[in-house]
């Protein structure tokens, strides 16, 4: 089966190319069906490959060498070699199944969601191209090919965020995402250069060699992971090259996986169609950074300080994004900040040395966050493009399937057992706490993580209660009095709309408002009979149900390897055992401190308790209305304003980076026009001026010329005659 592995990325690529050329001719819905089949076939092949691989020996990866891509003799001891080759190991198994599986469901969902969009074939071209790119990223057997996939998913992200390119806010959001990602890619690329310079290879694994080659088989590194530069700069000079590589790679990860300080693009990326938000900006692409760090974990273990940085950034991102999510009113923005926050958890897990826990959370998060986004898309679809939570409410009775599946996702993300999020999040927190036994910094990070559990529970519960419970507050509310009788929520007009939302409401008049323009226009034209909340069609509900099922059972995986009930400390649990060939820690120190079971139980109780606390506070505010949210807002005016304005980070970046950048650009533009173009034009003007002066001599009168001859001849004669 491993020989067919190349088909897994090739099929979506073929679908993309096919739709590029024939999509418009096939039209709607055939082009979408083609795309769906391409991804679904890819999923089947991937599943077969994974089954055949995991039924055998998984201690070393299965390699599929396609062709040598770069073979450049540099004239030094090592050749620059990179091959186009794919690889299946337990980590890649998890990733490839998540990408193709969730990808198939979202393709299916898009059939319905995008059905009225004029750009239908283009959408599926991009979506298939994205699937191909992401599969290249996760299946690549070396860093360089992975980087190719990494850049391609960035391109697809840009294309799909700006899918409705006639809307200025979408176009600029796409550019923002691309540019911020470039900052991260810069770090990744420099890291790659250093990897090659240090290790002389890009391969993740040596042939028939289980641990990564990056744990220095050639013995070039000193004990601390540094490169000995004594011969160049004098005795004792050691460049911490692995630390540099690890941090540079992590800069790449912060860009792609939306971590502090490069997270700013992800909330704006919600300008794209909702299936895109689900597939790219929640389930798969943004996890590429997590995957990359996990893939390079043997490098990180050579530089433990880098792991601490990873964990700290993760925890800070988690609580920071969660705090912003508390007060957002756009349903997709709440979910976007939630994604940033959950990605922070994954990095916290990775940084604690528990790589499997991070990857496990990546998987469960892909299930429940895709579910939540698709559910939000269903709500937006059902309400004819309403995204503001303050104009929703009571949707439970209008859209039962959406509501129930959404609530399963809600319980999963806030970590209520036995839903998926509980297990993965609890594993991360437990591992962080465990790591805290050796390094007190991690105890602080654990505390941040625990607070974030409470915040997550609050904002997700707020979202659910505002959207699905209480009276309907939409534009087509049955009676104005009923809508007016529910003053429990933040005043709609009294607070400043965040920039993106203002832009969005300005964009409503554009040809393609969010979701599907023609529908919105039609719905408005048909009057309230069609404009009221309604359930979405079956093609969109099936993925919701499947993902809901996965969100319930996806977390039970760790139990498969453990006799007890909860994944308490008796490592390795099922998921860790499975991922061990890819992610086993080579450093001896980390996993030794196994916690006392009672402490483990206490940790679990603490995190579930935090979640319940958040849930109850949200219920008190938004279900019971005691105390009223508006009172809370007026009591905490300043903190509320900071949160609503997202800590003014966008404004800060605008002032610190974007504005000086624009100033520099306009200066350079003036320099180009004035000095560079000026030099070129100046030469031309000089020639023209000289010509203008000299043309006066060309009178056109032959006799004038003759006089000149004569005078000249006499002058020459006189010179020769009278020269001294």
């Amino acid at each position, binding site marked *: 089966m491993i020989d067919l592995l190349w088909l897994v990325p090739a099929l979506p690529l073929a679908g993309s190319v096919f739709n590029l050329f024939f999509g418009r001719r096939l039209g709607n819905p055939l082009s979408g069906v083609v795309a769906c089949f391409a991804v679904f076939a890819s999923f089947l092949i991937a599943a077969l490959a994974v089954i055949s691989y995991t039924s055998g020996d998984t201690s070393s990866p299965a390699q599929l060498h396609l062709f040598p891509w770069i073979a450049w003799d540099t004239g030094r001891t090592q050749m620059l070699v990179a091959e186009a080759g794919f690889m299946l190991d337990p980590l890649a198994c998890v990733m490839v199944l998540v990408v193709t599986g969730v990808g198939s469901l979202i393709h299916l969902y898009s059939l319905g969601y995008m059905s009225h969009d004029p750009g239908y074939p283009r959408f599926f071209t991009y979506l298939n191209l994205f699937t191909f790119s992401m599969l290249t990223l996760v299946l690549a057997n070396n860093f360089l090919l992975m980087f190719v996939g990494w850049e391609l998913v960035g391109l697809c992200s840009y294309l799909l965020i700006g899918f409705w390119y006639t809307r200025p806010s979408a176009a600029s959001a796409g550019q923002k995402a691309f540019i911020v990602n470039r900052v991260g890619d810069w770090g990744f690329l420099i890291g790659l250069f250093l990897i090659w310079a240090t290790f002389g290879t890009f391969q993740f694994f040596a042939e028939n060699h289980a641990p990564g080659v990056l744990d220095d088989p050639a013995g070039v590194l000193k004990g601390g992971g540094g490169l000995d530069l004594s011969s160049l700069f004098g005795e004792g000079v050691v460049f911490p090259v692995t630390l540099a590589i690890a941090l540079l790679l992590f800069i790449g990860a912060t860009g792609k996986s939306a971590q502090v300080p490069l997270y700013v693009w992800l909330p704006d990326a919600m300008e794209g169609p909702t299936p895109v938000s689900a597939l790219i900006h929640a389930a798969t692409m943004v996890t590429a950074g997590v995957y990359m760090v996990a893939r390079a974990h043997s490098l990180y273990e050579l530089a433990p300080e880098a792991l601490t940085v990873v964990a700290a950034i993760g925890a800070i991102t988690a609580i920071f994004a969660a705090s912003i999510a508390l007060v957002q009113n756009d349903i997709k923005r709440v979910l976007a900040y939630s994604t940033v926050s959950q990605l922070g958890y994954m990095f916290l897990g990775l940084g604690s040395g528990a790589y499997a826990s991070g990857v496990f959370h990546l998987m469960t998060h892909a299930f429940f966050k895709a579910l939540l986004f698709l559910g939000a898309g269903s709500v937006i679809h059902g309400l004819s493009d309403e995204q503001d939570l303050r104009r929703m409410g009571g949707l439970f009775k209008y859209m039962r399937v959406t509501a129930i599946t959404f609530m399963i996702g809600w319980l999963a993300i806030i970590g209520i057992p036995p839903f998926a999020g509980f297990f993965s999040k609890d594993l991360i927190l437990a591992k962080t706490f465990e790591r805290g036994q050796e390094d007190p910094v991690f105890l602080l990070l654990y505390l941040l993580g625990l607070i974030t559990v409470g915040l997550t529970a609050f904002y997700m519960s707020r979202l659910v209660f505002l959207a699905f419970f209480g009276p309907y507050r939409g534009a087509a509310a049955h009676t104005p009095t009923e809508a007016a009788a529910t003053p429990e929520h933040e005043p709609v007009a009294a607070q400043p709309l965040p920039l993106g939302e203002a832009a969005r409401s300005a964009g409503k008049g554009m040809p393609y408002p969010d979701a599907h323009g023609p529908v919105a226009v039609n719905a408005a034209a048909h009057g309230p009979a069609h404009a009221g909340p309604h359930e979405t069609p079956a093609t969109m509900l099936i993925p919701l149900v499947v993902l809901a099922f996965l969100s319930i059972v996806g977390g039970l995986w760790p139990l498969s390897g453990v006799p007890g009930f909860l994944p308490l400390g008796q490592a390795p649990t099922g998921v860790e055992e499975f991922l061990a060939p890819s992610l086993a820690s080579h450093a001896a120190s980390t996993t030794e401190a196994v916690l006392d079971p009672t402490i483990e139980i206490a940790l679990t109780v603490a995190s579930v308790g935090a979640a319940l606390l958040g849930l109850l506070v949200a219920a008190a505010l938004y279900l019971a209305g005691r105390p009223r949210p508006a009172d809370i807002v007026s009591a905490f005016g300043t903190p509320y304003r900071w949160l609503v304005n997202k800590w003014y980070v966008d404004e800060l970046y605008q002032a610190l980076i974007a504005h000086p950048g624009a100033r520099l650009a306009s200066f350079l533009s003036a320099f180009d026009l004035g000095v560079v173009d000026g030099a070129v034009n100046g030469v031309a003007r000089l020639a023209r001026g000289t010509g203008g002066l*000299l*043309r*006066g001599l*060309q*009178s*056109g009168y*032959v*006799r004038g010329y*003759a*006089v000149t001859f004569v005078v000249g001849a006499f002058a020459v004669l006189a010179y020769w005659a009278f020269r001294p």
Partner: protein
Amino acid sequence: MNHMQLPFPLPVIPPTVPTEAYLILSGILFALGCTGVILRKSALTIFMSIELMLNAVNLSFVAFARQHGQFDGQIFVFFVMAVAAAEVAVGLAIIIDIFRSRRTADIDDVSWLKG
């Protein structure tokens, strides 16, 4: 210059007319031609004036050749005459063509090359 050596000695002609006289005549002819070229407006007259200047030069060539007893100047005159003949052929053709198209041979009307 590599002077030509004749296979036989030139007959020595007694200097009845001094070289200066030829040169003075040549200078007068050249000045006349030059004045004609500068002052006359008719293309044909200018042409004839040019011929006058050429022949003035020819005269001084021949005079010097005689004075020095060498052939060089005389041979050069043949070249000048040949080139002058070619020039006449081309120049007259141009003048005729101009006359056909513009109905005039006035040199001041032909100033297309004015810059």
